[in-house]
Structure formats: C-alpha cells, structure tokens
C-alpha cells in the first residue's frame, strides 16, 4: 500500500434558496439557517476542507441570485467549493465556474441525458464534475437511484449508475442516502463501502451524520473520501474543530 498522506475531507453543505441557507429534514420542512456567505467564511475559518452549495430553488429567475452568491463566496473564501442545483448545460457550468465555483454538481439532468457528464468533463475537466446521486434501498435491499430532488424513481441501480458516471468522466461522486437524510442516525456505511469498491474516483458521503462517531465510521467502515453534513454544523450540534480533533485522536488523516 502507498504511504499517502491525503486527508479525509469534512464538508459543510449549505442548501440555499433565494440567497439564504436552509436545511430540510428528508427534503421537506425548510428551516432558515442563515446568510450563506457569512456561514461559508466562518466554516473556512474553523477548518472546513471544502464547501458545497446546493441551490434548492434552482429556478431561472434565481440563477442571477446564485451567480452573485457564488461571486461573493469566491471573494471571501479561499477553499474549494462546489455548486449544484438545476444545472443542465455547458452554459450553466461555464457561468458558475466563471463566477468562481471550483466544481459543479449535477444530478437529474445527468440521469435524463448521461452524455452531459461526458460533454462537461471534456469541456471543463473531470476534476470539476461532481455527480450527485440520491438513492434509497428497496425492500429487497437493492439501492435505487431517484431524481428530481428525490421525488422520481429512475429504475437505475446505485452502483451501476455510479460506475457509468465514472466511465463518462465524472470526477467525484456525491452520494446521498435519502433514507438517512436529516435523521442523524449515521451514514449509510455499507452502501458507501460498496461504492468505494466499485469506483476509482473519490466518494463524498452525505445523509445521516448525527455525531462525531458517525464520521469515524464513515471513514473507516464506509471508506469514504469525504463526509458532508449540514444541520449538524449549522445548528452548532457539532463543531468542526471538535470533530477534527476527535478524528485525529482516532488516527484518521485530517488536515489540521
């Protein structure tokens, strides 16, 4: 094995709607959690390794608001950040990257037209194309992919879709376990471990973070490369410095 000193990443996720941060529990009941630029600067200052912004309104009228937000974040914050929500074309990606985003995450539009992944990777480089996957296990235990904010069944299996996206040129997979989202009951570590084994590109775990032990488990059992959480950080239930020192004590490679 290599002696890689690559650190596991801790990523706060900011769901934004009309320029404000919100966090839903299982994609519903939105709660206001503050100003995204101030939150982003705060998270960068306390040691967040990366940030994700998801525009959950993602309507045409909101694109300008989102671009302004991206520009303001890029000015204030000097760590990488990803923007997602409603991205469906080269033009969307171009304007977001130009405004200062480092990566974009795509979801439903890639399910509708998988060649989008290939075109975006070719034009902008695989490193900035994050494929977001929302999935949930069926009664038989098979993880299936949903689109359109978790509302529509796609018939795609999680691992098959992730592998296909990797082949098409995605640089990273952001996997949200819908059944875990907002529950604070721990990440879907078994599915994450399977994803890790199916893929060569990095995997970001999302959905279910409730305690620092959950992060330890997602990095050990789940073999995730990065772990994302929202309300846990936004509402001060767990601070990033506290989480990072706990992970370091437990021999996880962390940037300090």
């Amino acid at each position, binding site marked *: *094995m*290599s*002696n*890689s*000193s*690559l*650190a*596991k*990443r801790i990523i706060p996720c900011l769901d934004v709607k009309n320029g404000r941060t919100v966090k839903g529990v299982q994609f519903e009941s939105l709660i206001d959690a503050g100003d995204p630029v101030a939150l982003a*600067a705060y998270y*960068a*200052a306390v040691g967040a*390794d*990366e940030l994700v912004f998801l525009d959950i309104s993602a309507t045409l009228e909101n694109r300008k608001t989102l671009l302004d937000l991206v520009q303001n974040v*890029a*000015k*204030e914050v*000097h*760590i*990488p950040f990803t923007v997602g929500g409603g991205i469906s074309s080269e033009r969307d990606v171009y304007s977001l*990257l*130009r*405004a*200062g985003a*480092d990566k974009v995450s795509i979801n439903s539009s890639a399910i509708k037209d998988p060649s989008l992944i290939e075109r975006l990777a*070719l034009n*902008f*480089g*695989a*490193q*900035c194309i994050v494929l977001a996957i929302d999935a949930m296990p069926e009664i038989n235990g098979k993880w299936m992919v949903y689109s359109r904010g978790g509302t529509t069944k796609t018939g795609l299996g999680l691992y098959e879709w992730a592998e296909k996206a990797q082949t098409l040129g995605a*640089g*990273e997979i952001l996997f949200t376990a819908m059944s875990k989202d907002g529950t604070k009951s721990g990440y879907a570590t078994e599915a994450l471990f399977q994803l*890790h084994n199916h893929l*060569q*590109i*990095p995997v970001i775990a999302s959905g279910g973070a409730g305690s620092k032990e959950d992060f330890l488990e997602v990095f050990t059992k789940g*073999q995730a*490369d*990065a772990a994302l959480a929202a309300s846990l950080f936004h509402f001060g239930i767990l601070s990033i410095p506290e989480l990072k020192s706990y992970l370091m004590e437990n021999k996880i490679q962390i*940037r*300090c």
Partner: protein
Amino acid sequence: MIMSEEKMDHQIPNIVIIDYGAGNVFSVRNALQSFGVDAIVSDDPDVIQGADKVIFPGVGAAGKAMNQLRGKGLNEIIPRLTQPVLGICLGMQLLMEFSGEDNTECLGVIPGEVKKISGWQGLRVPHMGWNRVKYSREHPLFSGMSEHEWMYFVHSYYVSQHPFAIGVTDYHESFTSVIEMNNFIGVQFHPEKSAESGIRLIQNFIKLY
C-alpha cells in the same frame, strides 16, 4: 480577511495572470486581492512580457490547454519570460516537455514528462483533496510555513521525483509537488484554494527576488 496586517506596503507590483481560458483565473485573482494586490488578467503578449511577476494558472486537459496557448501565440512567449513565473497545477505540468495526457507536447521549459497516476490498491484517481507538501530545501517561497504544509490538490497526472523538485508530496509515490528551474516555479496544488497556507505561498512568490 486573511493576513490583512501584512498588506503589501511597498511599491505595487505589476502582476499578470495569463488568461487562456483556464477556469481558475479568477480564483487566483481573488487570492491576490485578499492581501491587497490587484492583478491584471490578460492574454496580451506585451502585457505579459511587461509584468514584474507572471502567474500561469491551469485547470483541465493538457491537449486543449496547449491548443489554446498556441492559438494565442503564448506557447512562444511563455518559455522566453525572464521574470519570475508561477505555474499552478496544469500550469506547472505545461512547463514540462511532454504530457501523457492526450500525448501533448508541452512548453519544454523544464526537462521531464508528466505521467498518469495509475490507480492501484484502492487508490483514488484523481488525487483530490488536502495533502502535505514537504519542501526539500530552504526557499523563500516557503517562508513562514511549517515543514509539512497542507495544500489542496486536484489532478490525475503528475511529475515524478525530479532533480529540480523543491517540494514533494506522498500519494501513490513521493512525487514532485513544487519544482523550480531558473525563473520558473511550478506547484502541482492549488495555492489559491489552500486557505491561509496557499495565500502565504502566493504572497511569498510576489515578494521573491
């Protein structure tokens, strides 16, 4: 916000960021602005040649980037620059002679080639995230930094151990993460995205010579 107490108080240096369609041009400019330096973003050979310091950023694929440089005639200009030049990520790789990415002939400023990271034993490709840079000798570029500084990397191609390496990072092997030859410096990571450590490095580059 970062290091505001250390604003550049002496003469304002003329910093030019080469604009050839690379995605991170504005991130680099934002990073410079955080310590009060307004850089010029330009693809004009005269502006680039007239700069005190040149930053050569890069994101994306080598083949496409070289085509864009050739389209603007910058493939002729960059190797002849005599002021300090900082190549970032793909910008560093393009300073080499050849890249295995799209079998691309690069600028040939620094001897050596760029190879693909081959994923093995569960190693992720791209090499993405924060990793440590160990600098192999004292250099003003690393002034004020710890011996193992965390920097943000995103790349699938790399330069292996090199006689001109001044910083190395461990991944699949110990590879070249900072290289220097004459007035050219290349960094494989993204200092503009590496929080305080990266801003410090850029600031050190601006103060060089």
